[in-house]
């Protein structure tokens, strides 16, 4: 199982029937592939749709039905469409149960940086700041390290996405939560030891007496 699949499968376990869920681009998008059959989750696309379905078959795409990246999608039975004011009222108003976002850095207190690298990459924050400020639960789905450097850091040196801490971080090596505002190792990936996670994590981790392995 590759790193992205481990992350996506583990995040999918955080979703419950009836949840309204917003998935960011990248690894978060893959989460939809691992929702257990029979679990009724509503996926929101912030360009104005609840009930996103799979990419349509060749020749059945509709130019006015796309995801937030402008790619064709389908709508499931029971889907609804709305304008951007409604879409972000859902997000900021606490009606979205779970958002899953990619990350550049998460710090020891759960602060996320994921929207710009000064001088290098300034794409804009799109909906990320509203999602982190407003969704009931914010889950970050990202690789534990990039180019040999830990993405779980003592303090973010990239601009923050929100002053609000995220709920959970799921990486290819670990699940990390923030009870009492401190990064705490909740699970390790299959075959990965607590020591191995600590060795590749820049932030100080609280290690509980027992740290179970992810069941994926």
């Amino acid at each position: 199982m590759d790193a992205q699949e481990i992350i996506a499968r583990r995040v999918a376990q955080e979703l419950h029937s009836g949840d309204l869920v917003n998935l960011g681009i990248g690894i978060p998008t893959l989460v939809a592939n691992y929702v257990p059959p029979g679990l009724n989750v509503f996926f929101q696309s912030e360009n104005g749709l609840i009930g996103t379905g799979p990419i349509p078959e060749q020749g059945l795409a509709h130019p006015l039905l796309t995801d937030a990246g402008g790619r064709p999608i389908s709508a499931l039975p029971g889907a609804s469409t709305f304008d951007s004011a409604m879409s972000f009222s859902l997000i900021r108003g606490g009606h979205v149960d779970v958002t899953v976002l990619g990350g550049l850095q998460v710090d020891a207190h759960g602060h996320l940086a994921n929207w710009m690298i000064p001088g290098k990459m300034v794409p804009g924050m799109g909906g990320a700041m509203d999602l982190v400020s407003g969704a009931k639960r914010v889950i970050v789905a990202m690789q534990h390290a990039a180019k040999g450097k830990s993405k779980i850091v003592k303090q973010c040196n990239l601009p923050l996405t929100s002053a609000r801490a995220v709920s959970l971080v799921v990486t290819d090596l670990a699940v990390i939560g923030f009870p009492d505002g401190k990064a705490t190792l909740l699970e390790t990936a299959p075959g990965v030891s607590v020591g191995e996670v600590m060795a590749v994590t820049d932030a100080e981790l609280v290690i509980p007496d027992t740290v179970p392995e992810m069941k994926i």
Partner: protein
Amino acid sequence: MRAVSVEEAVAMIPAGATVMVGGFMGVGTPERLLDEVVRQQKSGLTIVSNDATVPGKGVGKLFDAALVSRLIATHIGLNPKAQQQMLANQVAVDLIPQGTFVERIRAGGCGLGGVLTPTGVGTLVAEGKRQIEVDGKPYLLETALRAQFALVHAFLADYLGNLSYALTARNFNPVMAMAADTVIVTAEHIVPVGVIGPDHVVTPAPLVDYLITNPNG
């Protein structure tokens, strides 16, 4: 509402105007109006649009033709030309969180001075803005945003100017149709009055100033 040709409508927009453009990654964008803006070379524009789409599509065409001097948007990551023009200081870009962007426009169209939002508190977005506490919680004061023109794309427009939208092409269009001095609309289909039932009108006719006529009668 007056039905006009696309040439006549765009001729009303002066160079240097502030123009809102509906659409999300070019979906629900009035392409015919943008093509005509390029043909008439309306330069120095301030564009208010969710994103810069990609070159060759939607407002991306305005960057291809170097007609934009300022962009107010939420995301420009998929248009390398817009990024180049920003980094070369040819275009000033204000990046705004998407929920804040739409609420500022909504406030502009609804007679509100602005909105209080928790989004951006404690980030770069808060710089230079007033922070106001309500019941112990901090919010940013985000002021209303309006434009001289809104270029809107609907799915159906009737002969009076009532509008309805389709699927994810609705996005910012109905909100922008409230927030500009002059509202110019293109539609996929122009239909007789009554085809859009009262419950299905999203933008009521009195909000629309000009409807672009079909090119072939």
